[in-house]
C-alpha cells in the first residue's frame, strides 16, 4: 500500500481532476533535455525545470511528459501557456520542503522518486508517493 507526503507547493497553471503521476527527472541543461527525450518512459516522467520559458523545455513538452514542475515562473509565462495548450499538468514556482539539494542549493525531489501532481485547486501540490 502506498503512502503520500506533501513535499511541494506552487502555482497551478490549469485545474483538472486528472492527476499526473510519474518519476521525477530534473533537467538542467539542453544536453540533458535531448538525452531525456531519447530515453525510455518519457510519458511516465514528471520533469523539473528551473525557469518558466518555453524553449528550454520544448522537446519535453512535445514528447508528452506526464507533468511539469518549475522552480520559477508564473502561469502567464510562455511555458505556462504551452503546458495549458498541450494539457500537461504544470505546477510553477514550486517550493519543496523535502528532497535533495541542486548544485545551486535548491531543494527538489531526487531523480527517480515517484510524485503525484494535484492540480485540482489554485495551488498546485506535489506529493511524494512511497510504496
Amino acid at each position, binding site marked *: 500500500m502506498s503512502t503520500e507526503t506533501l513535499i511541494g507547493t506552487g502555482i497551478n497553471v*490549469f*485545474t483538472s481532476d486528472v492527476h499526473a503521476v510519474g518519476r521525477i527527472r530534473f533537467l538542467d541543461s539542453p544536453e540533458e533535455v535531448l538525452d531525456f527525450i531519447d530515453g525510455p518512459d518519457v510519458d511516465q516522467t514528471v520533469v523539473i525545470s528551473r525557469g*518558466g520559458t518555453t*524553449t528550454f523545455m*520544448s522537446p519535453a513538452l512535445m514528447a508528452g511528459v506526464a507533468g511539469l514542475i518549475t522552480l520559477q*515562473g508564473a502561469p502567464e*509565462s*510562455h511555458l505556462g501557456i*504551452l503546458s495549458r*495548450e498541450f494539457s500537461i499538468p504544470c505546477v510553477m514556482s514550486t517550493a519543496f520542503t523535502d528532497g535533495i539539494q541542486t548544485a545551486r542549493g535548491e531543494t527538489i525531489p531526487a531523480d527517480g522518486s515517484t510524485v503525484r501532481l494535484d492540480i485540482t485547486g489554485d495551488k498546485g501540490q506535489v506529493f511524494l508517493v512511497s510504496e
Partner: protein
Amino acid sequence: MSEADDFMKFVEKYLAEVPGGPAGDQEMRRRDPSPFVDTTAADIRPDKLTDEQIQSWFDYMSWNLWELIATRSTEGESGLIPRQEYETLSFVQQWSVNPDAMRLITDKVGVDGLVELGRVPRREIGTKVNHIRNYASALMAMLGRGVCVSLEQLDPTVRRDDIQDCIQFARRTWHGTWGDGPGLASGRGFQLPVLEDDVLQPLLAAAKPFEDDEERTFFRRFNGTTELFGFLMHYDTRLGMGDTGPYPLPGGGFALIRDHFLHETGFEWSHIGEGLPYAVTEVLCFKPDPIQLTINDIGTTFTKPQDYLKSLDRVAVFARDTIDTPMSGIRPVGHDEMKKIVTTCQAGVLSMYKILAKLSRDEKIRNGVRMYSHEFMRPLAYRAGAWDEILANGFDDLAPATQEAWPILTGGRAAEILAPVFLLGKGFPPLKSTAVV
C-alpha cells in the same frame, strides 16, 4: 517591509497604485480622460504633436506595458536563449533605426496609406500586418529610448521629432484598425474582435464538430505543436502567434481566430519551416460555457477557467502558403495535411533546439536582436513596398547606441535595466526635464 515585498507591490499594481485589466484602464482614463492612445480622423493627420499629447501617450503606454509584462516578470531564466538580453538590445537598435524606417514608409504611402495598412487585420488572416505589430511598432523604439536614458546614454529632451514621428506612425495604423476611439485592446475591455463580418462568417461556416475524442485530442496536439514551433521559429517569443476575438456566436458561445506563423523567411534558421505554410489559421468555436476571456495587445488569450480548450466545440484550419498569398488564395487544411504539419513541426522543434544548443550566447543574442528588430518592422514595410530600401539603408547594421549598450546589457544587467523600464514606469522618460532650475 522587505525589498521583495516592496517589489511585489509594483508587480501587483502599476506604480503600486493602478490595477491591471479594465479597472486599470478606467483609472488611467480618470486621470487623463482623453489619452493620446485614442485616435480621431482629425488628430492622426498632423505631423507635429504637442508636448502634452506626447506625454499623454507616454503615460498610458507606461501603464499598458506594465499590464502586459507584470505577470510575466517572474518568468525566470531561460536556460537556452538569453531573451531579455536580446530584447533589450533590440529596443535600443529599434530606437536607432525605426524612426527613419517609419518616415520612409510614410513618405511612400502617405497618412492614408498607413491607415490602409491598419485596415489589413480587419480584412485578412494569417498576416503579420496585424494588431500586434501595429501596437508595438512605436512602443519598441520608445522602450529603446527609455533604456538609453536609463543607461545615461541619452538626454530625454533630445530627438523630439523621432518620438512624434514614431507615435503618429503607430496611431495612424491604429486608426485604420479601430476608427475613432481607443487604439488598443486595453482600452476596449481587453478584446480584439477586429475581423469584419464578411471575412469572419465564411471562416465560421467552415468550422466542423469533432467526430470523436481521438480527433479532439489530435486537434489539441496540432494547436500545441504549431504554437510551440512558432515560439521556436521566433526565438522564444509570442511573435509566432496571434489571436483575435472573441466573436459572439449565434445561440451563445464565442469564436477565436488564431494565427500560427510557421515559415518565416529571412532567418538563418528558416529552413526548419521548409514544407510548411507561411501561416496556419485556426477557427476555434466554443460552447456557451461560463468562460471569462481576455486578449491582450500582443494577441495572447487568458481565460478563467484556464483550460478553455475543454469547451472547444467546432474547428476549422486554413493555410496561407506564402507571405505573398492573397486572401483569395487562403485554403482549408484537411486532417491528413494537419498530421504532416505536426510531424514537420516536431522535427523542426528538435532541429532548432539542436541549433540553439550549439550556438554561443553572443551568437544567440545577435540572432535575437536581428529577428526581433525585423519582426516589428518588416511586415508593415514589406506590405508598403519599402522593406528592401529600409534594409539597404542599414537597418541590420548595429547602431552605435546598440554597440555601446551591448557590453552592459549582455553582462548581466539586462534584468536590472528591464525591471524599472517595464514595472516602474521608467520606460517613458518625460520630454521635459523635471529638474528644478
